[in-house]
């Protein structure tokens, strides 16, 4: 089964737990596509970095458009206002991490000193 790995950044003013991120995305998929749609996504939360507010999700390749359409619809996480922005999508976890590191380096070098 082909899969896709999605790196997302959470935009919120409060501390957010790993489960809260997953349930917020899951809830959004359920609202937009119902249980049938959600069953096709095979969604998993692979990694969550609470310090950088970054998460890595895994989903089925076929359900990628569905997951990508549901993520921006998240407006609340754990009772507080929040937004989730998709950073990168990749076919393997290794390439996603490599691209993320590259992106972070690029944004750090672009920051004014």
């Amino acid at each position, binding site marked *: 089964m082909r899969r896709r790995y999605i790196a997302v950044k959470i935009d919120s003013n409060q501390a957010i737990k790993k489960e809260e991120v997953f349930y917020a995305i899951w809830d959004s998929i359920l*609202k*937009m596509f119902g249980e049938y749609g959600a069953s096709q996504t095979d969604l998993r939360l692979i990694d969550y970095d609470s310090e950088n507010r970054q998460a890595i999700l895994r989903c089925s390749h076929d359900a990628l*458009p*569905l997951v*990508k*359409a549901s*993520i*921006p*619809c998240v*407006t609340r996480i754990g009772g507080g*206002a929040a*937004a989730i*922005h*998709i950073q990168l999508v990749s076919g393997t976890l290794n390439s996603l991490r490599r691209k993320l590191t590259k992106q972070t380096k690029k944004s750090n070098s672009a920051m004014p000193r």
Partner: protein
Amino acid sequence: MQRVRDAAVKFFIDLHLCPNLEDQDETKMMIEKSAELGYKAVGVTFPKKYSQSEIEKTRKICSEAGLDFIHRVDLEPSNTTELIRSLRLLRRQVEVISVKCLSKSVARQAAKDRRVDVLSFSPLDVRKRFFDSAEAELASKTQVSLEFDLAPLLYLHGYRRIRLLSKLREEAFIAKKFNIPIILSSGANNAGLLRKPEDYASLGYLFGLDLNDAKRAVSENPKEIIDRNRRKLSPNYVAPGVYVIRRGEDCPDG
């Protein structure tokens, strides 16, 4: 060639920011957030009569954030006479004119008037969305685009969101059939409702826009309007297709 196309696609524009202009901090926050999210230009909505100094203040905030500022006015005329009068008054002053069509007659007039850039409809009352085949046929003869505000998709829930999605799907299908450019904008009035341009393109999936069309709707389509109108507003514009190329001493002797 591919790289050139990618560069054109990456010029993302949010043509519809609706900050509370009384609150400068909120306006600044929204503009900075837009820059952070990857936009290169933002269209800020101003009322019809607004002081030039306030507009310049917003322009300055945009340039400090590294964004191209687009002056936009949303007209909400109650009848066609009011629409025509407003267009005559504003067309040579603002870069983008959007008409929020509250009645069918206004929608029809706006669709056939070349001075209108963008047609928009109520996101909350789908019965007041008058974009049908007849409207699209009129719009296809002018250069009017159809705008979808995406913030309502984020804050509406349940039945109202279902109705809106169903209507957007129908309108997107008609627009594609008649080659009407679609524009995806935020329509956000607070920073919490802003999303990345790529996220807006992904939301297009919900109403049947394929990813390439959706990306064009946040980049090339609004850019075409801006470029066209800036050419027209420049002092070198004389009439459709006629521009001043050289002046004074630059002109070669006959």
